[in-house]
């Protein structure tokens, strides 16, 4: 019996910390290859006929993670689809797919995914207590026949896979790759009340999570049902929740998302810096509390007048631009799907969809493709390619567009191509390059541009976000590329510490880095305007600590009664720069952005009653479920009743900013009807709010308490 690679884990490497969407290979924890078997339990542990079976466990990182969107083995997507192309996701609680699924359910070219078990990384049950559903002893350990010690890998997100290679092939050990929704984070409102615990791509909640798990509350449980331990009052008081919630809202308003993994064992400062880099963020500690900000337009909070400025203390320079780079390059892994071709026409007939492309396309039979951006967005969906004729016309199954409809436009992409490495450069800043490279006067003619590059790593991002943030950095550092060149200047000045401006703002309270202040004309006429505080050096009114020569008359301390500010020129125009239009090579499939989950001071459905009325009932065919919501309460910035639109397989509410979905993937009103937040098809959302085990019969209604 071959025992290849039996249980070998890479040890001595840091357990990763991952937020947002990441493509994960994982650290193999154990692996065994078993011969074909038609036996019954106890060996093999599952009843049934199994050809050669490879079973392994892989660890992702520190839990709790939300779950996978895709599983690839040998570059083929392995999660199952029914014969009509409908997506069958892993069961959200166990991660398993039907173990006796036939080969129709998977790509026959690559192999059969028999088992997929995901464990999110909560705490396992204590010895002597029943296992919890999430982090119990995985049944796949039975395939290891007791040769190794079975573990629950508590607090580690990991997965177990049982896979059969294509019959007749010898591909070697499987190499699973997962597109993963990583860390679940606590979400808070402006008062510091926890209102959610969920997957999110809002960087602000990632940063809060980092501070909590490493500094403020490093010792806590993650209960399989209750989630992480709540914060104590003292722990909650470590944060400025009003500012943090506002930053989270600003993050969402910009349409940003944050996805990154920390694997190299660096420090929290470097990790936080990376996270804040992707969203124009920064942090401060007013009165010992963490405050987070997303840089954006804001009003000045203090006016400096000549009556505050100490004589001969004003200095301006251009050190910001001196020797600064002027070629700004962004590297990222694209979380949208790169478009592989453009759609000319798309039409539906029966269960078949026909697609013609404007140019050659790389599609082939058995491919799973994603379509987005079609003029009729009912065609935006995933499809399973049945055939491609010689002229490149694609015949596919899947989607939910009505029969006998057609449309045009859109793009095709592949899920496998998500997280492609991209690198793009901001338009060259010629004015700065000329300033750095001038060795002959302008009258000599020609150009001598000195180009110095800097590269920003935006982890997993999109073209839109990467370019917006890159251009923001460039504008902030070296200003606009216009002639005559006026780079941002830096000013340092010393003010009387007890200054209060005319409206009554106290300098001590306004001298916070990141605040914008006004220098009025009496300070320095040519430099009047808006400036951002980047450094503060305060000196209080105090005496020198040492008395000289036995005397008893203390003297004022050096710099007593002064606050030294370092300012950077402020120009709100840097927030209005728009990302360049993506060239063809950066075209993505519209709408292929992964669901980001609730962010900001987000939404949580906290309770109420859902009444389902079935318009046409089982046993088969698509039918519509009408839903009446009553008493559903959600924590939300604005109130309003939850309403819905009917429509086919998935029913979306359009009155919550996140879409609450009634999903019936089998279209049969069966036991997969559930209610949970989602934003994409297939559903990639997080918590199930309500599972309906027994939907009502035709024309009947039933009420369920959320």
């Amino acid at each position, binding site marked *: 019996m071959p025992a290849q690679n039996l249980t070998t884990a890479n040890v001595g490497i840091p357990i990763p910390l991952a937020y947002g969407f990441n493509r994960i290979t994982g650290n193999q924890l154990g692996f065994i290859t078993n011969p074909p078997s038609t036996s019954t339990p106890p060996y093999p542990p599952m009843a049934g006929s199994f050809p050669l079976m490879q079973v392994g466990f892989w660890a992702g990182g520190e839990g709790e993670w939300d779950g996978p969107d895709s599983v690839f083995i040998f570059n083929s997507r392995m999660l199952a689809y029914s014969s009509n192309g409908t997506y069958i996701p892993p069961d959200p609680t166990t991660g398993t797919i039907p173990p006796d699924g036939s080969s129709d359910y998977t790509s026959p070219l690559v192999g059969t995914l028999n088992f997929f078990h995901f464990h999110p990384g909560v705490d396992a049950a204590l010895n002597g207590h029943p296992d919890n559903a999430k982090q119990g002893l995985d049944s796949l350990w039975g395939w290891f026949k007791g040769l190794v010690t079975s573990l629950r890998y508590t607090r580690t997100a990991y997965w177990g896979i049982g896979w059969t290679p294509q019959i007749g092939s010898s591909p070697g050990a499987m190499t699973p790759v997962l597109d993963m929704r990583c860390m679940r984070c606590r979400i808070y409102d402006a008062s510091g009340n926890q209102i959610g615990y969920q997957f999110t791509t809002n960087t602000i909640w990632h940063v809060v999570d980092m501070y909590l798990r490493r500094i403020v509350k490093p010792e806590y449980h993650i209960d399989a049902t209750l989630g992480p331990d709540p914060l104590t009052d003292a722990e909650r008081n470590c944060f400025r929740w009003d500012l943090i919630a506002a930053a989270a809202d600003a993050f969402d308003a910009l349409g940003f998302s944050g996805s990154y993994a920390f694997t190299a064992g660096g420090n929290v400062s470097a990790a936080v810096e990376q996270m804040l880099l992707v969203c124009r963020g920064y942090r401060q500690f007013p009165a010992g509390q963490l405050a987070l900000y997303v840089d954006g337009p804001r009003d000045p909070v203090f006016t400096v007048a000549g*009556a505050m*400025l*100490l*004589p001969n203390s004003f200095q301006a320079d251009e050190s910001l631009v001196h020797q600064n780079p002027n070629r700004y390059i962004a590297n990222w892994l694209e979380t949208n799907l790169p478009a592989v071709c453009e759609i000319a026409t798309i039409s539906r007939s029966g269960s078949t969809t026909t697609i013609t492309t404007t140019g050659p396309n790389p599609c082939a039979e058995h491919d799973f493709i994603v379509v987005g951006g079609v003029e009729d967005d009912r065609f935006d969906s995933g499809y399973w390619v049945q055939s491609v004729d010689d002229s490149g016309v694609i015949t596919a199954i899947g989607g939910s567009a009505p029969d006998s409809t057609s449309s045009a436009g859109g793009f095709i992409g592949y899920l496998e191509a998500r997280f492609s490495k991209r690198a793009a450069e901001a338009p060259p800043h010629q004015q700065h390059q000329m300033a750095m490279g001038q060795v002959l006067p302008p009258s000599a003619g020609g150009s001598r541009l000195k180009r110095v590059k800097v590269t920003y790593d935006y982890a997993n991002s999109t073209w839109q976000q990467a370019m917006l943030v890159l251009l923001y950095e460039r504008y902030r550092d070296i200003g606009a590329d216009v002639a005559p060149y006026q780079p941002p200047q830096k000013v340092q000045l010393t003010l009387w510490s007890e200054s209060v401006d005319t409206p009554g703002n106290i300098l001590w309270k306004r001298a916070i880095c990141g605040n914008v202040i006004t220098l009025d004309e009496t300070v320095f006429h040519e430099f009047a305007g808006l400036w951002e505080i980047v450094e503060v050096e305060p000196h209080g009114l105090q*005496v020198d600590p040492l008395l000289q020569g*036995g005397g008893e008359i203390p003297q004022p301390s050096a710099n007593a009664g002064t606050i030294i500010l370092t300012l950077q020129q402020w120009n709100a125009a840097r927030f209005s720069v728009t990302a360049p239009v993506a060239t063809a090579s950066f075209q993505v499939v519209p709408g292929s952005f992964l669901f980001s989950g609730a962010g900001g001071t987000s939404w949580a459905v906290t309770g109420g009653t859902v009444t389902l009325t079935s318009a046409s009932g089982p046993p088969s065919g698509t039918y519509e479920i009408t839903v009446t919501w009553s008493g559903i309460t959600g924590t939300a910035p604005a109130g309003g009743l939850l309403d819905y639109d009917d429509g086919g397989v998935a029913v979306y509410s359009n009155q919550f900013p996140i879409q609450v979905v009634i999903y019936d993937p089998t279209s049969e009103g069966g036991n997969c009807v559930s209610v949970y937040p989602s934003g994409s098809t297939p559903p990639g959302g997080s918590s199930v709010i309500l599972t309906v085990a027994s939907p009502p019969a035709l024309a009947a209604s039933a009420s369920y308490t959320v």
Partner: protein
Amino acid sequence: MPQTDIMNPTPHHPLNPDYSFQRKRPVTHLNQKAKLGAPYFRNLTDVGHQFLLNWMDRPVEAADELKWYYEQYRDGYFTWIDHEGGGRNYVGRFSSPVEPQPTAHNHWSIQMVTFDEVPGATMLQYPNRWDKDAIWQLLVSDFGDVMVATNGSWTLTANAAALSKYNWVGANTNTTDWAAYRYLGYGFQFWAYTGPAMGKANLVLDGTVLTTIDFYSAGSTQRVMLWQQLAVPLGVHLVQLVATNTKNGASSANTVAWDALKVMR
């Protein structure tokens, strides 16, 4: 009690210093002048008076005694009386060494000895020349700054008859209301007006309630000295008028007021 040790108890005592000893007032504040506008003033510390003293041609007994006062009170304080200056007591110590020099047989000179007041020291006799040594701390400074901080329901009311020409008038209905002022000096006097519709408030010095001031009088009277606190050591002191939500039984309202302080310097 060290303050009871008076080095020169009488005007003719041999330890009285020679004439033309220098009375100094060390700088205790910071003046900061910005590019424009009036300079800013902040008092930083509570150093008191300083004297540069000389004794010429004294017998050895006097020299020995002066030396003893230096040694004994290097880390303490004693009382020195400025008889020439009206008999005012100062409590402090010699901050520079006493170094007697014989100039002839039984003739000693002790020169340039510095006497510094010690803040916070209890005094036998506190300065009490209110007409000469005290200064007014009005409600509004020369620069138009209202110098008395308030918390709660207080109204700044113009009053031509008041010392400060303005009063803080407090509703005195909430016991968390207060008005506060900090000064450098010794004792103080609290001045305000009284009237038939006035209440009672506590006068607090450095956190200790001194008295409850009754602002009631049958007729209205301006510029009343409602309290004098003489025995206060040198230092920076916080005076607060704290609401009590009470009044005299004959009064028709709770109102209290602040006009001015007179502070001993």
